[in-house]
């Protein structure tokens, strides 16, 4: 049984249990949108099965006036629409909470709890009575529970109606049905229950500079803004919506108005190997090209990634991580591919990796990834995850500087080529470890032979030890030099230097932030650094040096981030402590507090100085 917990106005969690494929997603979206439009910070997490229709699915809504958006497993209100999962859904509500359910069929005694309030509404019966046709009845049942929530939570009905009007502007009969259903639910709740509940809403103004979007949509838009023209992919959850988004935005913004033709080319490849090959081919030609995928895709692309590394071809890969290994849990989140992305492929390799923490960074890092890939002429990864990529996130409005000029790196144009004596592809002329490249078709002096086999700095085939080593050493230095160019870590430091620090990455951020605040209110102040890029920026090294205990928080079993720190910084192992959660849900404050506490008690005296 779930434990009791704090809650209040604009501060609670609610979990809606339905069956997938029944249209609940749009009802839940409506709900979340209404809250957002009321100016209240809100977040929504979709927990869905790896199938298409008929299995239990959940939507978790967190309302938090202070703006905390991390997942919270404390649900004050359960909307239990799926008898299949009653047992679990009812148990999950905290003591003192409420359970809204469909009492068209009576609730089995085994599900009863004394410490929560059951709010039964005969949803199915009402829908049978008021709507015709089984499909519409199923859909309207969802809208009806939203109607009940309007009453129970005091949602602004005008906002809801406004949204329905926008949505169904051209479909009067659907608008009518939705209005009807909303009001049915509202009326029933008002008549039968004490509305609103103590957990309820009050309009605020905390969302006006914000938007609500998924990380994958934002990443897709980032690719458009970065000037990517070639996208190659093979469908895979949870990366598919990156390409869906790119397709949609390209169709809107990238079709030549005169000819109706596309200023882009999206190739649905036959598999991930082919997708990687396409991206590399396009990168070789000078296009900004990318492929979104997940762990299994990266495994399959490994050989090609090594080619791009060694032949120095810019290309961008998005890894929207899901729970591994193997097929794993494709609809659950994890950070299990950190090491893989850093070192993918056989032989000595190392790659640039960016770690966004939310859709805002998905957008920004997308753009930056193409710059880095071209500047350093090497595969660059944007490593996101299912939680960031597929869930709705409230983020500050995105901005774009119209003076932005993409960093194409060293590319010799026809004029430059005309002037030089001979072009050598892998010759570093200015000591920055980067050799100029040329693009095919530009000038015959720029021609060279690209290969994944041994080559010297002139670009010639070689089996000579020294010539081979010389190129390999430059490659290492080159990628390492990207450390100063990847996004610098975000650092949260308390006033005085503290001895304990936390390091984390990606979507862990929000739970860590919340936990850190919570600890601070108990007088425990901790410094915190969030890694945003690999190879690690010097600031990471500094942070490690400045703290005697550093707790690394991440979402995988094998301490992959901690391992990267061990390998790539000079930090002593004794300093590093590990907190891991890898059950497939987004990280929550509780995980963090529970995880760090054992290390704090030891260090507490010091911490509090």
């Amino acid at each position: 049984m779930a434990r009791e917990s704090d809650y209040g106005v604009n501060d609670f969690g609610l979990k809606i249990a339905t069956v997938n494929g029944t249209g609940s997603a749009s009802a839940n979206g409506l709900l979340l949108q209404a809250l957002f439009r009321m100016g209240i910070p809100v977040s929504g997490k979709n927990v869905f099965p790896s199938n298409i229709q008929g299995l239990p699915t959940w939507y978790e809504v967190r309302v938090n006036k202070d703006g905390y958006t991390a997942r919270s497993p404390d649900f004050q209100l359960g909307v239990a629409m799926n008898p299949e999962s009653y047992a679990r859904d009812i148990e999950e509500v905290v003591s003192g909470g409420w359970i809204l359910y469909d009492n068209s069929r009576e609730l089995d005694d085994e599900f009863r709890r004394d410490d929560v309030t059951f709010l039964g509404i005969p949803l199915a019966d009402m829908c049978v009575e008021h709507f015709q046709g089984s499909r519409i009845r199923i859909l309207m049942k969802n809208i009806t529970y939203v109607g009940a929530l309007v009453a129970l939570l005091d949602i602004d009905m005008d906002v809801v109606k406004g949204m329905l009007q926008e949505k169904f502007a051209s479909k009067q009969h659907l608008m009518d049905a939705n209005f009807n259903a909303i009001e049915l639910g509202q009326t029933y709740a008002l008549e039968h229950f004490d509305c609103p509940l103590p957990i309820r809403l009050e309009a605020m103004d905390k969302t006006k500079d914000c938007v609500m979007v998924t990380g994958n949509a934002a990443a897709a838009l980032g690719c458009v803004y970065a000037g990517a023209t070639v996208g190659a992919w093979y469908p895979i959850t949870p990366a598919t919506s990156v390409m869906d988004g790119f397709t949609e935005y390209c169709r809107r913004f990238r079709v030549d108005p005169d000819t109706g033709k596309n200023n882009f080319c999206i190739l649905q490849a036959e598999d991930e190997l082919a997708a990687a090959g396409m991206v590399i081919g396009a990168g070789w030609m000078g296009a900004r090209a990318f492929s979104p995928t997940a762990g299994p895709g990266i495994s399959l692309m490994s050989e090609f990634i090594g080619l791009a590394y060694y032949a120095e071809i810019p290309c961008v890969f998005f890894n929207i991580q899901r729970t591994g290994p193997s097929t794993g849990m494709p609809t659950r989140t994890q950070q299990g591919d950190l090491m893989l992305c850093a070192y993918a492929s056989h032989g000595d390799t190392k790659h640039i990796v960016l770690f966004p923490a939310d859709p805002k960074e998905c957008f920004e890092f997308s753009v930056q990834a193409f710059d880095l890939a071209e500047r350093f002429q090497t595969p660059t990864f944007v490593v996101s995850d299912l939680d960031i990529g597929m869930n709705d996130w409230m983020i500050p409005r995105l901005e774009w500087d119209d003076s932005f000029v993409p960093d194409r790196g060293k590319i010799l144009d026809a004029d430059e080529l005309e002037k030089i004596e001979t072009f050598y592809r892998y010759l570093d002329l200015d000591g920055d470890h980067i050799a100029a490249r040329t693009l095919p078709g530009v000038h015959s002096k720029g021609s060279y032979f690209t290969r994944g086999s041994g080559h010297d700095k002139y670009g010639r085939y070689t089996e000579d030890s020294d010539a081979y080593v010389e190129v390999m050493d430059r490659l290492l230095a080159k990628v390492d030099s990207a450390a100063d160019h990847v996004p610098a870590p975000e650092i949260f430091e308390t006033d005085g230097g503290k001895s304990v620090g936390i390091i984390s990455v990606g979507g862990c951020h929000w739970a860590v932030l919340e936990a850190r605040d919570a600890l601070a209110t108990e007088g425990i102040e901790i410094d915190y650094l969030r890694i945003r890029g690999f190879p690690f920026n010097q600031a990471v090294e500094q942070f490690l040096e400045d703290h005697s205990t550093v707790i690394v928080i991440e979402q995988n079993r094998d301490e992959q981030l901690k391992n990267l720190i061990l390998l790539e910084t000079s930090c002593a192992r004794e300093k590093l402590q590990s907190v891991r959660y890898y059950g497939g849900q987004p990280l929550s404050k509780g995980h963090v507090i529970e995880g760090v506490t054992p290390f704090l008690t030891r260090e507490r005296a010091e911490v509090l100085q």
Partner: protein
Amino acid sequence: MSYIKKPAARHPKLKVNSLGLTVRDYEGSMSTLCAGCGHDSVTAALVQTFFELDVEPHRLAKLSGIGCSSKTPAYFVSEAHGFNSVHGRMPSVAAGANAAHRDLLYVGISGDGDSLSIGLGQFCHAIRRNVNMLYVLENNGVYGLTKGQFSASADIGSTSKGGMANEQGPIDPVNTALSLGATFVARSFSGDKDQLVPILKAGLSHSGFAFVDVISPCVTFNDHQGSTKSYAHTRSHMHEVIETDFVPLRTEITTEYSEGSVQGITMHDGSVVKLHKVADEYDPTDRRAVLDYLAEVGSRGEIATGLLYLEEAGADMHGFENTVDGPLVEIPFADLCPGSKVLEEVQKEWW
């Protein structure tokens, strides 16, 4: 054209093409293949093709996978851009390159191991996508570079150097390509440059995936008695179904095509391919008839050669994708980035 390097001083007697280049300018670095390797003859045919078609070297992109055959791009047109990628996966690299820059000429060189074993999936999907390129499969029935194992194109009964006979049926790339809807399918022999060169020219002019299967004997591992991809076997079993003439655009077309045995097909770029048919009833534009004819020839143990099938109308990859006419790589950033105004607009939809 202004970006072609000045040709070095040449023997004055060497013929020059319309770009002022000699055949030497289309050569590459020295071959490191075995003396007598069929692949080197294919290289020579390619050199002649590019020279005679006045190809601007730096507008040619030559790609390959891994294998002896896949090394050959290094041996022709040094001033073309070359890409020796990974084993069996060249088609995807070519597709991506072509997606980015449709205005270059693409030639892919592969082997039977590269295209029919590890690369079969990519080969088939490049056909399905009709990627605009000349795709040459240097077919020797073995993995040359790894020392002579049977490949998927080894015929039943063909023996290895050690004397073992292959028992599994071959994957016939011509049959496969035709079955999958390839728009240009030819087979030739590295030992027959006269036949091969016009086919390569036609393939280069074809707008779509031009597949040329070239029997190219491996003198080291598959040129013995008992091998069905040897010089001797191929010479004695070759059956030229169709003879190809290629008339480039710039040549004035004066010939009249007689009914019946000669068929003229105008390519996308205006060049004309003239096909002299051995059998009157052979129609190189009727896929099913071609398959049947090949099956019949094949059942006699003969190897049908020539430009076997040609269909010039179909859309290529860019047609399917409705891409702009020019190369994507040449679109200015300003036309690609929607800018801050649009970003504001888009975000209005984000609740």
